């Protein structure tokens, strides 16, 4: 049994969610008596490749080709498949991001493996793996196992810790030929200067209670103060006040940050589903009976336009 971690890089920088996946792979390796954990990074120049060596894998392999600086579903799949030892069974692990899901699904079919995405807990008692994942945007959890010889899983970011290991992984840079680029990224449009709700450890969200799109300046200012991403309820996204990328909830993004601050959000069931697994929740809302208070650790049942500026001021001090 071998374990491979699909390491994600954007613009040549390895993502933290991939380091978490490497650490979890190392934890699983002892539970399932895997002989080796290999972290595979596909790309051109990787500025922080050294960092990937510190999270418990035996080996980090950089599959290098200048044509693979940007993601290519077809190309990355081909390069990774050629690096997997198909004479042995394997577990493929990636973070549950766009990149991780895309590659994981392709490899699952090619390796005749079962797949579980968005795993938030793994039970390995007795060497048998049971995976738990949220369903219905977190309104329920499903526990399941994979009967296939090869297994593919993606891990929800920020659930499994990245743990620095005593032993440094070996690093091999392997020049690879150019694979099929029949599907490839030709341009990356970064949301300038903004953190994404799916990746942020703190989120400040606004809802209808903000009363107008202009008032989201307050939300942005509080987010800046906290180093947080801006989130939004479905109501304000549907009203066109905020972009869809910020929507938190069952038809937006499901998030589990360390701190979620809900401002002027009453807490529709779809919204609560998408954020109630946050570690700490603060709610600021005029209506003390709003459902958001049922999931909040700390609440202020007051006017957002009075409380939020005071909070910004207090945090800046």
């Amino acid at each position, binding site marked *: 049994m071998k374990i491979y971690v699909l390491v994600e890089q954007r613009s040549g920088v390895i993502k933290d969610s991939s380091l978490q996946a490497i650490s979890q792979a190392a934890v699983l390796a002892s539970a399932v008596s895997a002989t080796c954990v290999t972290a595979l990074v596909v790309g051109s120049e990787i500025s922080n490749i050294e960092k990937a060596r510190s999270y418990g894998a035996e080996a980090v392999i950089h599959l290098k080709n200048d044509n693979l600086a940007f993601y290519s*579903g*077809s190309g990355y799949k081909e390069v990774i498949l050629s690096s997997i030892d198909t004479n042995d069974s394997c577990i493929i692990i990636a973070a549950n*991001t*766009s990149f991780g*899901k*895309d590659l994981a699904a*392709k490899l*699952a*079919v090619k390796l005749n493996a079962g*797949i579980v*995405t*968005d795993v938030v807990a793994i039970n390995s008692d007795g060497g048998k793996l*049971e995976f738990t*994942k*949220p369903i*219905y*945007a977190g*309104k*329920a*959890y*499903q*526990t*399941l*196992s*994979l*009967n*296939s010889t090869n297994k593919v899983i993606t891990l929800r970011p920020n659930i499994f810790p990245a743990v620095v290991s005593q032993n440094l992984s070996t690093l091999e840079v392997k020049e690879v030929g150019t694979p099929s680029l*029949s*599907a490839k*990224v*030709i*341009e990356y*449009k*970064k949301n300038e200067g903004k953190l*994404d709700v799916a*990746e942020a450890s703190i989120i400040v969200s606004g809802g209808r209670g903000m009363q107008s799109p202009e008032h989201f300046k307050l939300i942005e200012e509080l987010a800046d103060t906290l180093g947080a991403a801006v989130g939004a309820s479905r109501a304000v996204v549907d009203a066109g006040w905020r972009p*869809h990328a910020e929507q938190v909830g069952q*038809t937006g993004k*499901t998030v589990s940050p360390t*701190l979620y601050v809900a401002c002027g959000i009453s807490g529709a*069931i*779809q919204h609560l589903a998408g954020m*109630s697994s946050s*570690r*700490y929740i*603060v709610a600021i809302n005029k209506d*003390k009976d709003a459902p958001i*208070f*049922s*999931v909040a650790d*700390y*609440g*202020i*049942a*007051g006017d957002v336009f*009075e*409380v939020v500026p*005071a*909070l910004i001021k207090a*945090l800046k001090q």
Partner: protein
Amino acid sequence: MKIAVCVSFVPDTASKIKISAESSAVDTTGLTFILNPYDEFAIEEALKLKEKLGGEVHIFSMGNDTVKEGIRKALAMGADEGSHLKTDISFDAISTAKALADAIKNYGAELVLVGKQSVDTDGGVMAQLIAEFLDWNAVPSVTSLTIEGVNVTAESEIEGGKEVISTSLPCVISTQKGLNDPRYASLKGIMASKKKNIAEIAVVLENLSTTFISASLPPAKPAGRILGSDSSAVSELVRLLKDEAKVL
């Protein structure tokens, strides 16, 4: 162009979820079912492409007899016909994708559209799985799609931005909010849908790669504290975030 659209029929997102008595699965009895919201973008995009390029739109859905109602809703929006991949047992993403890919291959589609994720199982990889079984490319989470001849350019939403992806037909596209505004079924459309054909395809599922062990509700959160009703509570809030929660 022959366009296949894969849909799922799911509990309304406003549903309160219950677990079955033996704790093995979610109990959906009594819930209202709707077309998976992300699949509505797929249906709308298919109809727009048909209006522009000609061709036909065929709906595929897998499950027990209730999914037929979902197919009927898609037909009411304007799709031409449907296929019901019938099974009464629980199935996983891989077996669904395999069955759909087989049916789509028989149909002879050049383009497959599917919602980026089904809001019940929240797997989020159906497009890629179907594509892989067909040996095609897939573009996930698409918010803008241009097809010129066989050339496909799509904007795919990723964390913190968008990727512009270039590929070619045939391919599988998964649809995300922002791509279009799905139309409502007109009364005429609803009447017409009743006469449209839904073929039944029996699906035999064996050697599932997944064993479903149990389902559970999230642990109940202890009631939180309301610290006050105006800005005088802010200093206590900041103190708690620092000293108790230790998140600042």
